[in-house]
């Protein structure tokens, strides 16, 4: 059943994302083309260039805002409006419903990032030697590896921790949207308003929680906790703590959403 849910979740969201990506590309290409005529010194040419570039920048930010909005809209619409009468009477578990929505939202978030980076490449075509950029990036990378080797002997550990942290943070940010709606629907009335409140509420708690942990971490005597951690230095430990914190936050959002949707669904 999960694969079927994924299929329909994909179909229902693709119709928003594809035009948005298309528009971003169009703005990047149009902007890039307008620069081909920059030798022609003409006021209207300048106006056009600036307008197109502004449009591109607007769309660039717009892609991320839209990604957030589409994820939130789809979740709310499919679960808590009239469509919820069908969604909640399908013979599927709440766990599967949430998983399908999470996976698809995750994929679109990653796509949006890739597409945004790709649009910059389009804009830069012909202005930058990409091989030089890659060369320079390679040098930066070598430098990074050297520095990590010096200050953090387990660079692979740091890298893994870093990637996991980004993935978890993304999952948590999606689940935070879901959890907000799950809380929002508890009252019956003013669902969206309460969901927005919950979203910011969660943010405040998350910040507070994260800051507290970060302030405590330096005082932790981690060698007592990890007696075998000889050689592992502060960088890894801080990341590890952050990772655990992130894992807890993600789990809390997931469980809150799941429990509320399973036990307290009250479509009125």
């Amino acid at each position, binding site marked *: *059943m999960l694969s*079927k849910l994924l*299929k*329909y979740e994909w179909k*229902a969201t693709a*119709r928003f994302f594809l035009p948005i990506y298309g528009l971003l590309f169009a703005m990047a290409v149009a902007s890039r083309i307008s620069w081909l005529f920059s030798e022609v010194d003409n006021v209207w040419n300048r106006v056009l260039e600036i307008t197109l570039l502004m449009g591109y920048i607007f769309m660039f930010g717009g892609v991320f805002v839209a990604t957030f909005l589409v994820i939130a809209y789809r979740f709310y619409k499919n679960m808590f409006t*009239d*469509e*919820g*009468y*069908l969604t*909640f*009477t*399908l*013979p*599927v*578990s709440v766990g599967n419903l949430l998983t399908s929505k999470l996976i698809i939202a995750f994929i679109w978030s990653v796509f949006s990032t890739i597409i945004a980076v790709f649009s910059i490449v389009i804009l830069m075509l012909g202005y930058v030697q990409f091989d030089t950029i890659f060369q320079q990036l390679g040098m930066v990378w070598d430098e990074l590896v050297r520095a990590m080797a010096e200050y953090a002997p387990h660079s692979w550990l740091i890298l893994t921790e870093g990637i996991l942290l980004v993935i978890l943070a993304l999952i948590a940010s999606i689940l935070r949207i879901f959890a907000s709606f799950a809380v929002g629907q508890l009252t*019956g009335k003013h669902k969206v308003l309460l969901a927005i409140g919950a979203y910011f509420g969660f943010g405040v708690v998350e910040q507070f929680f994260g800051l507290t942990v970060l302030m405590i971490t330096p005082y932790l005597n981690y060698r007592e906790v990890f007696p075998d951690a000889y050689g592992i230095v502060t960088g890894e430990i801080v990341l590890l703590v952050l990772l655990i914190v992130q894992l807890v936050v993600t789990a809390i959002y997931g469980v809150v959403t799941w429990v509320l949707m399973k*036990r*307290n*669904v*009250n*479509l*009125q």
Partner: protein
Amino acid sequence: MNPILECRNLNKHFQGTIALQNINLQVPRGRIVGLLGPNGSGKTTLIKLANGLLQPSAGQILIDGMAPGIETKRIVSYLPERTYLSEWMTVRQVIDFFADFYADFNRDKAYDMLTRLGLQSTARLKTLSKGTKEKVQLILVMSREAQLYLLDEPIGGVDPAARDYILHTIIGNYNPNATVIISTHLISDIENVLDDVIFISRGEIVLQSNVDDIRETQGKTVDALFREVFRC
């Protein structure tokens, strides 16, 4: 065999107001049952509880002996009193959707009924009128070979021709082992279609009886009895 629907001391309140109070009810298989009561008497609440869209405040509601969940959703076909289909989908897409999720969905039956309605399967739902959308929804719900059909106000606010269409669709797809529960306040329109009636008033069951028994013992139609029971 378990009754297809059973309520045991079922209660539901919403923030202080009582919607259902101590409902005890058994609905057997193979019946067409009218759930009759004025607006706001608790009909929709009862049907939503049976679908797991609301949770009981106290007591139990059981479908084929099970609390609402994945298993019961497989055997219950539900028509809500609102349109729940995604507007951007085409008729063909919603049929695929139902066929994908409900193992008891009969695709041929659905296409047959849609053709008779003169509907193109490529039509998008948002281009259809409200009445047509409601008919599409009824076709989807009745194309399932379910054990329990819960139809919430299927004939509320439609013209007599549409009402006849709806009743014919319900009778034409009726399977003698299944139970159909139809909630409505328009009794005279559906009285002849019903085996049994359940009268519900202010969240309580006031009568459960066979239609012809009422006519035989009381010498009046269910509609007339309803008007007496619920006289304002």
